[in-house]
């Protein structure tokens, strides 16, 4: 079984200084720590766990991690260290700099480019995180499934091989129920609040062995259209009135009165 995972490397937006967001036309994340998108990281680990359960049952399985746009080498090589057999960076037509358009706000083009690559790989399963920044549209899994002609399972939290029935069981956490489902054939799985949200730790030995491995590069013929989006700052400067007091008890007393409705301060604000 071939298992592909689509992931994205993003800046840790919570590590940015507030004034970064004041000029949305000149955002610079050069010196901001990079990380896997949080749901993408869950998808990476969910895929590895499924691979492990398949191999434990004697079913051959390989994993492939693919990203549009790349990222720091330490994170890409980290996937080799974590156990991925292949790591691929895909670029859009127009070169690595993607002069034509920014994929961040073009989920359809992102899905087209990923599908362009994945059709050649013909994976059995494709895992993605359910959403990631900066666009936060959550649409890439949906468009990717449509492009590939695969059914889409959303809100996947776990995937495990059942050797008795010779099938993969996907656990999906819906709003009011939990579904355990199997699929005959291919599928795209959008991972949400997974049971294993973090990529596994790997040994120093694995890290050293991965050091010499470079991600593969693959260039798509698909261009990214301009999105036409304009960006605006969301910075809010509420006049936060601090509740004062000599002791924590005094401050808590004021809060307690608010909670009991004994002070109308909040209603008048």
């Amino acid at each position, binding site marked *: 079984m071939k298992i592909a995972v689509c992931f994205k490397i993003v800046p840790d*937006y*919570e590590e*940015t200084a*507030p004034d970064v*967001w004041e000029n949305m036309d000149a955002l610079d994340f050069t010196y901001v720590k990079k990380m896997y998108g949080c749901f993408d990281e869950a998808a990476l680990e969910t895929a590895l766990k499924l691979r492990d359960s398949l191999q434990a049952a004697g079913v051959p399985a390989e994993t492939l991690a693919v990203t549009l746009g790349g990222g720091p080498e330490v994170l890409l090589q980290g996937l080799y260290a974590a156990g991925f057999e292949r790591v691929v960076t895909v670029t859009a037509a127009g070169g690595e700099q993607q002069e034509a358009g920014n994929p961040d*706000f073009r*989920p*359809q083009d992102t899905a087209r480019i990923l599908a362009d690559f994945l059709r050649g790989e013909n994976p059995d399963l494709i895992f993605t995180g*359910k959403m990631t*920044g*900066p*666009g*936060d*549209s*959550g*649409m890439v899994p*949906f468009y990717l*499934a*449509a492009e590939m002609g695969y*059914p*889409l399972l959303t809100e996947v939290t776990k995937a495990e091989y059942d050797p008795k029935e010779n099938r993969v*069981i996907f656990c999906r*956490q*819906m*709003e*009011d*129920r*939990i*579904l*355990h489902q*199997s*699929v*005959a054939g291919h599928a795209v799985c959008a991972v*949400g*609040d997974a049971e294993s*949200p*973090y990529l596994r730790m790997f040994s120093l030995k694995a890290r050293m062995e991965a050091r010499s491995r470079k991600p593969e590069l693959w260039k798509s013929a698909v261009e990214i259209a301009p999105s*036409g989006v304009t*960006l*605006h*700052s*969301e910075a809010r400067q*509420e006049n*936060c*009135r*601090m*509740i004062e007091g000599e002791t*924590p*008890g005094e*401050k*808590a*007393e004021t*809060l*307690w009165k*608010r*909670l009991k409705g004994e002070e109308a*301060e*909040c*209603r008048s*604000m």
Partner: protein
Amino acid sequence: MQINVILAGLPEDGERSVLERMEALVEELRKSADRPVSVNCLYVRPESENGDIEKDGTELVKAWAGHQQAPLLWVLPEESRGLSQDVCCAAAAFLAAHPARIHLFCGTAEGEELGRRTAALLGTECLGKTEGFLQEDGLRLRHKVYSTHGEGRYPLHDACSSGTAAAEGGAGHVIIGSPGGRRQAWEEKTPAAAEAGKEGLKVKMFRPQAGAPPAAVTVMEEPRQKQDDLASARLVFVGGKGLGTKENYLRLKALAGKLGAACGCSRPAALSGWESYDRVVGISGVSLQADMCVTFGVSGAGPLVSGLEGAAHIIAVNSDKKAPIFRYAQEGIAEDCMKIIAALEEKENIWHT
């Protein structure tokens, strides 16, 4: 300008709040558009038990559709709760048969998923949940970006005039209402609209065609135990990683229970195993509509703050007086959270050994 409004997954005891959010969005669209707006309404709902879908449980939706001067109310019945591929295909067929510049889906869980699947089936643009509309070099959609640190304003091209939209199928834009968005009460404006809402508005069925068998086979289904409804609670406490330990979070939760408050958490707290994911407040979790929300040990990260915006009044408790949460709260306490919690426990006669 023609728009389609699609209502799906309306909660039995929360129909009106969903309709009020749609009212606010449609009214904002009317104000932002440079031409009159006409509305078609499709209501996706479970099959009626007595078979009379025209009369059973559609009164409020009919009244709202009549208020929007929709020519009639289309109803798409679902055989069972939850989305099937047949319903998704039928919704896509409905939108294809009723061309519109915008297809606006309500922000319930089912509405959101139906909107996304329909957009993918049609190959048309969908940008996720919207915060609203505005007129800026044409009609634009407002959407939070960069984990809610910024706002993106996307052009909503007219399918008749835009090459880009035509290239993407020209099927109009699929837009999903934000579940925490602004609400606007609606009343029947004129006697004629009131009459249309009650009796005069026709209801027409749009039945899905039986299609291929579902791709996924359900091996087992288990109910998900729901705690009190965080999204509709009037008083909410939200605990973050600043509380330090799971035990401290559980103390906060017990205190909330004693004070009649619901208790939610940040995503990092849920990832640490302090709470189940359905209690996460934020962009990928619950959007609060509380009269008052008190946060404890919450730093103020963008994704969580997004879930607080519907709260009328926010009080933040954090030991770091420079924590970003104080930029979003109306009131704040710069103090060790556990000291505040301990003092509140004392007021409520909660003792720890």
